[in-house]
C-alpha cells in the first residue's frame, strides 16, 4: 500500500536548498486561548448535553465560565459538589479552578499528526510547560534540515508545508535544526488528490474506555495489518468516556493510540460523550483542543467555517465528516447547506461520509432516537442523491453492515430499500456495484465499550455483538471493508466496485505473509475487461514492477512461485492488456525468510482407506491408490463431508494420508486433530503423535472412547519433515465394534525457513522497461532516482552498486569520498558517500543466527511488530519480553532505557532504543562477525 517515495527532480532541488529553511507554518489559535467569555449552550440541544453531564442543583450555575480548557472538570465538579453540598459556591469555584488547572497542567501529549494533505502535515503536541513550537523534518532521517515553527506555548501546532505527495518524511520536535530523526517519528503525505493510489483506513468508534477490550481491538488491528499500517484513522466518536475530559482524552485516546498517532493522522467526529464537555457552536472544550481540523477546506472540500463538520480528500476518496450531536441537523441549517455545496464541488470517485449517530441500528441504540432519525431523514436523502458510497457511524455498540441500500429515510423496513440482496463479498455473491444508486451503511460502534443489542435490523446483512474495528482497503476502483473482531478474527468483509469495468485483487489482498519461494495463487475478479491480462509483482511497494505473465487469460487465477527474497513491501497487480487503465493492485504483503504456514488447513482433501483391510506399515510412507475426499471424514454424526464405510461390527482401523510439500527447512510443527475415538499420526513413517491408542495393530481398537469430535492440539517433532515432499499419515481407531461414529480432520501448521537472496533473483519471465528500471531483476538502474527494494540496507547514494553495504560498495564509496574531498563544493557529497563506510558488511545467515538478541516490547506497539518481522524474515532468533506482562523484564528494560520506550533491543550489549532497521542490521551484523 505504501508506495516507495519517488524522489523527483523537484525533490532533489528542494533537498539542496533546505538547510534551515523556514517552512510555512501556522499556529492554531487553540481554543483555551480564545477569548470566549462563555462556553454555555446555544440552545436546548446543547443543554441536553449538559444535562447528561450530571448537572443538577438549585442556585446559579457556576457554569463553565472558566476558559474552555478548564470547563470539563469544572462542570463535573460543580455538579458533584452541589450534590454533596459540601462547599459553598465560592469555595467550589476556587477548588474547581485549582483542579482544572492541575488537570491541564498534567496533560502532556507526545507528537501526533493531524490534517495530512498531499503537501502538508500538522504536528501537534502538548507540553507541561510553555516552550517553543519547532519541528525539524526531512526525507533523510540522519539529518532533518528543514524547520517549521509556531508560537511558543503549552499546546503546539506546527504545520509543515511544501511537501511532495506520497512521500515519507521524518520529523522531530526540536528547537534547532539540523537534527537526526528516529525511525518512529515519520509521516507519509497523502497521494495526489484524485489518484488511484491504494491505501488503508482504520475505522473505530466508541472506543474510549481505556479498557482491555479497547486495547485488544487496537492490538488485533496492528497484528492484522502487519507493516502495512493504516494511512488514515477515522474515529466515529465517543473517543473519551465518560465525558470527554482532558484527562479522559489523554488516558483513553492519546496514551492508547500513541504509536499510531505519531504516524497516522486521525480524523474524528464528535461523539455524545465528548460532547458533554465540548461545544460545537463555539468549538470549545477538550475535543476541539485535541484536534486540528480544516474549517477552511484546506484538506480538500469546501470551507465549512467550523471544525464541527468538515471534509477532506485522500487519493480518490472524498470524506465528509458531520456532527450529529451538537450541530443543528435541520434541512435548511448551515451544516446541511454546507453538505450540499461540498457534494456539488467534488468529482472524486468515492464519497465516504461519517458521523456519530447511525441512521440504522439495532444495537445498544435503536434508530427511533432523535439524532439518529434526524440524520437519516435529513442527511441521507442529500447524500444518496449525490451518490455517496459508504456511510459510517458509531454510537450503537455493535458491528452492523447493511446491504446496498437506497431510499430508507422515513421507513427502515427492508422492502423497497435494498438495492442488492447479495452479500457483497467477493468470495460470495460478488461485490456491490457502486453505481450511485445505493450506499453501504456500517455501524462501527464496537471499538471498546461494552456491546449489546438485538442485532436484527432488517437492513443489515451482518450484525455482530462483539468488539472490533473495521479495516478498509481502497484499491482504486474497489473498496473492501473488513470487520476485525477484538480477538483477531475477521468476521465480515464487503466490497464495493466503482466501475462497470474493473479488476479487483482478491488474494493477496494485503497484509499476508508468505514464505519466500513458495507458490502463491494470485486471485482476482474482473468485470468488463477484455479477457486477457498482464500480471506483475513488485517488491518495493509498486515503485518497480516485474512481469509474471505478459498475456494470460483473465480467468481469475495465476500461480506464482514467489522469489526467494524477503520484503514486507510486495504487491501484485493485474492489468487488462487492452486497457491499462483497468487494473487492480493488492496492498502490501510480506515475503518472509521464515514464517508459519498452514500446510494442511482444516477441511483438506485426504486419501483414505475404509475397507477394513490391514495395510501393514508401508502405507505410512507411500501415496496414491486410495479414494479421497475432504474432511471431516467419518460416519455416524451427520456432519461429515466425506462419509466412510460403516461396518457392522465396526472395522477397528481407518487410514488417511496426504502429501505435504515444504519449500524450506521446517523449524516448528503443530497439529490440531479432530478425532473419534483414537488416532496415531506419522510423518514420513515416524510416529509423531497419538491419543487413545495402545497398539498399532489393525485389529486393535482404541484404548478409550473420546466422545464426539474430540480435539487434540500439540507441537510435534519438526525434524521429521524434510524439504520437498512429505507424507502425513494418520490411523484412526474405533473404540469398539459397536461405536456409532468415527471422525477425522487435521490441521497442520509448520514453521518454515528458507535461505533468501540478498537481491531479487531473476524473475525469469519476459520483461519490459518501466521508468528506467530493469524489471527482470528488480534492480534500480544507474541514474535512476528511486531506492532499491530494501532501503534500510542501502542508501548512501550507492544504490547503483550491487549492494550498498557490500565490501565492494564500501571501498568504492571510500575511494570516491577521497577523490571528492579535493573539491570543497563536493564536501557534502563526500560526507554522504563516506557515511557508507560506517555501514557494516552483511553477515551470513548462520553468523546472524548466533547473535544473542533480546527485545523489550509490548503487544500493541507497531514498531515492535516491525522489529519482530524484520528479525523473523531474516531467520534471526531473539528473545521477546513483553514489559507490560513480565515484571522482571520490565526492570531490565528500565535499566537499559530510562525512557522506557519500546522496542528496546539489546544486541549483545548494543542497545537500540526504538525501531530502526538500519541500526538493527548494523548492530546484528557487527555482532555476527564475531562468529564463524
Amino acid at each position: 500500500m505504501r508506495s516507495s517515495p519517488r524522489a523527483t527532480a523537484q525533490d532533489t532541488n528542494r533537498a539542496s536548498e533546505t538547510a534551515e529553511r523556514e517552512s510555512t507554518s501556522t499556529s492554531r489559535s487553540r481554543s483555551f486561548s480564545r477569548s470566549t467569555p462563555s462556553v454555555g449552550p446555544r440552545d436546548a440541544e446543547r443543554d441536553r448535553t449538559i444535562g447528561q453531564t450530571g448537572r443538577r442543583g438549585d442556585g446559579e450555575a457556576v457554569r463553565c465560565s472558566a476558559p474552555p480548557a478548564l470547563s470539563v472538570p469544572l462542570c463535573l465538579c460543580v455538579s458533584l459538589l452541589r450534590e454533596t453540598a459540601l462547599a459553598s459556591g465560592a469555595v467550589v469555584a476556587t477548588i474547581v479552578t485549582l483542579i482544572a488547572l492541575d488537570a491541564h497542567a498534567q496533560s502532556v501529549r507526545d507528537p501526533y499528526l493531524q490534517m495530512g494533505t498531499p503537501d502538508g502535515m500538522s504536528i501537534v503536541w502538548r507540553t507541561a510547560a510553555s516552550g517553543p513550537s519547532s519541528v525539524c523534518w526531512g526525507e533523510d532521517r540522519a539529518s532533518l534540515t528543514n524547520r517549521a515553527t509556531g508560537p511558543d506555548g503549552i499546546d503546539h501546532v506546527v504545520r509543515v508545508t511544501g511537501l511532495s505527495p506520497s512521500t515519507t518524511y521524518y520529523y522531530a520536535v526540536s528547537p534547532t535544526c539540523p537534527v537526526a530523526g528516529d525511525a518512529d517519528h515519520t509521516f507519509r503525505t497523502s497521494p495526489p488528490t484524485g489518484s488511484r493510489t491504494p491505501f488503508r483506513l482504520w475505522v473505530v468508534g466508541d472506543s474510549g474506555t481505556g479498557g482491555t477490550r479497547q486495547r485488544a481491538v487496537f492490538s488485533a488491528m496492528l497484528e492484522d495489518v502487519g507493516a502495512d499500517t493504516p494511512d488514515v484513522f477515522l474515529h466515529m466518536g465517543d473517543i473519551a468516556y465518560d465525558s470527554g475530559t482532558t484527562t479522559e482524552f489523554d488516558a483513553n485516546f492519546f496514551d492508547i493510540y500513541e504509536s499510531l498517532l505519531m504516524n497516522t493522522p486521525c480524523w474524528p467526529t464528535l461523539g455524545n460523550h465528548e460532547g458533554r464537555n465540548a461545544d460545537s457552536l463555539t468549538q470549545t472544550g477538550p475535543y476541539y483542543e485535541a484536534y486540528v481540523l480544516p474549517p477552511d477546506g484546506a484538506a480538500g472540500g469546501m470551507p465549512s467555517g467550523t471544525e464541527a463538520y468538515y471534509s477532506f480528500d485522500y487519493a480518490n476518496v472524498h470524506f465528509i465528516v458531520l456532527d450529529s450531536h451538537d450541530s443543528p441537523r435541520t434541512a435548511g441549517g448551515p451544516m446541511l447547506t454546507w453538505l450540499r455545496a461540498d457534494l456539488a464541488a467534488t468529482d472524486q470517485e468515492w464519497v465516504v461520509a461519517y458521523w456519530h449517530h447511525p441512521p440504522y441500528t439495532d444495537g445498544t441504540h435503536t434508530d427511533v432516537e432523535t439524532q439518529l432519525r434526524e440524520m437519516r431523514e435529513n442527511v441521507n436523502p442529500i447524500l444518496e442523491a449525490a451518490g455517496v458510497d459508504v456511510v459510517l457511524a458509531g454510537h450503537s455498540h455493535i458491528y452492523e453492515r447493511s446491504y446496498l441500500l437506497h431510499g430508507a429515510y422515513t421507513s427502515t423496513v427492508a422492502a423497497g430499500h435494498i438495492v442488492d440482496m447479495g452479500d457483497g463479498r467477493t468470495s460470495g455473491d460478488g461485490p456491490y456495484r457502486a453505481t450511485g444508486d445505493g450506499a453501504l451503511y456500517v455501524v462501527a460502534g464496537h471499538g471498546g465499550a461494552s456491546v449489546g443489542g438485538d442485532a436484527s435490523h432488517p437492513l443489515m446483512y451482518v450484525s455482530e455483538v462483539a468488539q472490533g474495528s473495521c479495516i478498509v482497503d481502497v484499491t482504486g476502483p474497489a473498496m473492501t471493508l473488513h470487520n476485525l473482531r477484538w480477538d483477531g478474527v475477521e468476521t465480515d468483509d464487503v466490497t464495493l466496485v466503482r466501475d462497470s469495468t474493473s479488476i479487483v485483487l482478491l488474494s493477496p489482498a494485503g497484509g499476508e505473509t508468505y514464505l519466500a519461494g513458495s507458490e502463491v495463487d494470485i486471485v482476482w475478479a474482473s468485470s468488463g475487461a477484455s479477457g486477457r491480462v498482464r500480471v506483475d509483482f513488485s517488491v518495493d511497494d509498486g515503485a518497480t514492477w516485474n512481469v509474471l505473465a505478459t498475456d494470460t487469460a483473465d480467468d481469475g487465477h495465476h500461480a506464482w512461485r514467489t522469489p526467494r527474497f524477503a520484503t514486507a513491501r510486495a504487491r501484485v497487480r493485474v492489468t487488462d492488456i487492452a486497457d491499462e487503465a483497468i487494473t487492480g493492485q493488492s496492498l502490501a504483503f510480506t515475503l518472509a525468510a521464515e514464517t508459519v504456514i498452514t500446510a494442511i488447513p482444516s477441511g483438506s482433501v485426504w486419501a483414505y482407506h475404509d475397507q477394513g483391510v490391514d495395510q501393514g506399515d508401508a502405507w505410512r510412507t507411500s501415496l496414491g491408490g486410495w479414494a479421497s475426499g475432504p474432511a471431516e471424514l467419518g460416519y455416524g454424526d451427520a456432519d461429515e463431508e466425506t462419509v466412510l464405510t460403516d461396518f457392522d461390527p465396526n472395522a477397528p482401523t481407518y487410514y488417511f494420508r496426504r502429501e505435504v510439500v515444504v519449500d524450506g527447512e521446517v523449524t516448528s510443527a503443530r497439529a490440531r486433530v479432530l478425532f473419534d475415538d483414537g488416532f496415531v499420526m506419522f510423518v514420513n513413517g515416524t510416529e509423531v503423535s497419538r491419543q487413545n491408542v495402545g497398539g498399532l495393530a489393525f485389529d486393535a481398537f482404541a484404548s478409550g472412547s473420546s466422545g464426539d469430535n474430540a480435539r487434540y492440539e500439540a507441537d510435534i517433532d519438526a525434524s521429521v519433515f524434510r524439504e520437498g515432499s512429505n507424507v502425513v499419515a494418520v490411523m484412526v481407531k474405533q473404540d469398539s465394534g459397536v461405536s456409532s461414529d468415527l471422525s477425522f480432520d487435521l490441521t497442520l501448521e509448520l514453521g518454515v525457513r528458507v535461505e533468501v537472496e540478498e537481491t531479487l533473483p531473476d524473475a525469469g519471465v519476459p520483461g519490459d522497461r518501466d521508468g528506467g528500471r530493469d524489471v527482470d531483476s528488480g534492480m534500480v538502474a544507474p541514474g535512476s532516482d528511486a531506492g532499491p527494494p530494501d532501503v534500510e540496507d542501502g542508501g548512501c547514494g550507492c544504490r547503483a552498486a550491487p549492494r550498498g553495504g557490500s565490501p565492494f560498495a564500501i571501498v568504492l564509496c571510500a575511494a570516491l569520498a577521497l577523490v571528492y574531498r579535493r573539491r570543497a563544493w563536493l564536501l557534502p557529497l563526500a560526507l554522504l558517500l563516506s557515511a557508507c563506510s560506517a555501514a557494516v558488511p552483511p553477515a551470513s545467515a548462520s553468523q546472524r543466527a548466533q547473535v544473542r538478541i533480546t527485545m523489550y516490547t509490548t503487544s500493541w506497539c507497531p514498531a515492535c511488530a516491525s522489529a519482530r518481522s524484520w528479525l523473523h524474515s531474516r531467520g534471526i532468533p531473539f528473545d521477546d519480553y513483553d514489559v507490560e506482562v513480565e515484571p522482571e523484564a520490565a526492570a531490565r528494560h528500565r535499566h537499559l532505557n530510562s525512557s522506557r520506550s519500546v522496542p528496546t533491543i539489546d544486541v549483545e550489549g548494543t542497545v537500540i532504543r526504538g525501531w530502526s532497521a538500519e541500526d538493527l542490521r548494523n548492530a546484528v551484523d557487527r555482532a555476527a562477525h564475531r562468529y564463524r
Partner: protein
Amino acid sequence: VRIVLALWLCALSATALADEPSEERIEELRAILDRSPGDADARLRLALALELSARPVEALSELDVFAALHPGDRAADLLRAQVLADLGRDGDAVVILDDRIARGGDIGAYWLRARLRERAGDGQGALEDYDAAIGLGDALELYVARGALLERAARLDEAVLGYEAGLIAHSGAVVLREALARVERRRGRREAAITHLDAIIGAARVAPRWRIERASLLAELGRHEEAQVERRTALAEAERMLVNRASPAALVERARARIALGQHREAIADLELALRRAPQLTEARALLATARSGR
C-alpha cells in the same frame, strides 16, 4: 482537597450512566427516581432521555417536577423551554427564557428566544437576540440565522455586513459566501457577487452550479462571450462528475449546464432520469419545469 476531589471525579465517572439504549436508560432512571425521588440529576437525565426519544409530554412532566424542586437551574430551564417550543407552547417557552436572560443570558437562551421570536413574527426582537448571542460567542450558525432574517426583511445592506463579519470569523465558510453572492445580486452589485462566486469556484474541484450562476451574472453585465465559456466549462465539469460518480445530483448539475446552453431536450432527459433515481430532488423538479418551458 485535591485527593478528595479527584475521588469525587472518579466516583462520578464510575457512576455515570453508560451510553445505553434509551428505553433501558429511561427505565433505569425511573427506577432510580422510585428509590430516590429527590435525585435531581436522575430527573434531569430522564427528561433528556424522554425528549431524545420523542416523548416531549413526559419530558415536560419531569421538567416541571424538577423546576418545582430546583427553580432557576439554567440547563433545566433551557431544556424545558425547548420542550415547550417543540410542543408549540412558544409563549410559555419565552417566559422561561425571559427570566433566564434577565438573570444573565447566554448564547443558548438568546438563540432559542430569537428563533421563537422569529416564529412569532417579531423580527426586530429576534434580531436583537441574535446580536446579543453573537456578542457572547462567534458562532457560524448565528451569522447565518441573523443574515437570513435580514434578507427576509429586505435589509440587504445589514445582511451583507453581517455575512461579511461571519466570513472573517469563519474561514470563508461557503454558506456565507453563497449568501453574500445571493444578496449582492439582489442589491444589483453583480461584480461583488462574481467576486464571491470566484472564491467558491476557486475552492471547488468542480463547480458547475456556481459557474452557471456566474455565467448568468456575466450575461447581465453584457459579457456574453465570457458567460458562454463559463457555461461550457460548467458542462465539462458536470460531465467529469458523471464519469467518476454517475449520481442523480451529478445529472442535475449537467442538466443545469445544458439548460444554460439551450440544450433543453438533453436536460429534460437528465432530469427525468435523476428524478426516477432520486425522487427527493426537489431542485430537479424545478429545473425540469424550466427545461420544459424552454426558458
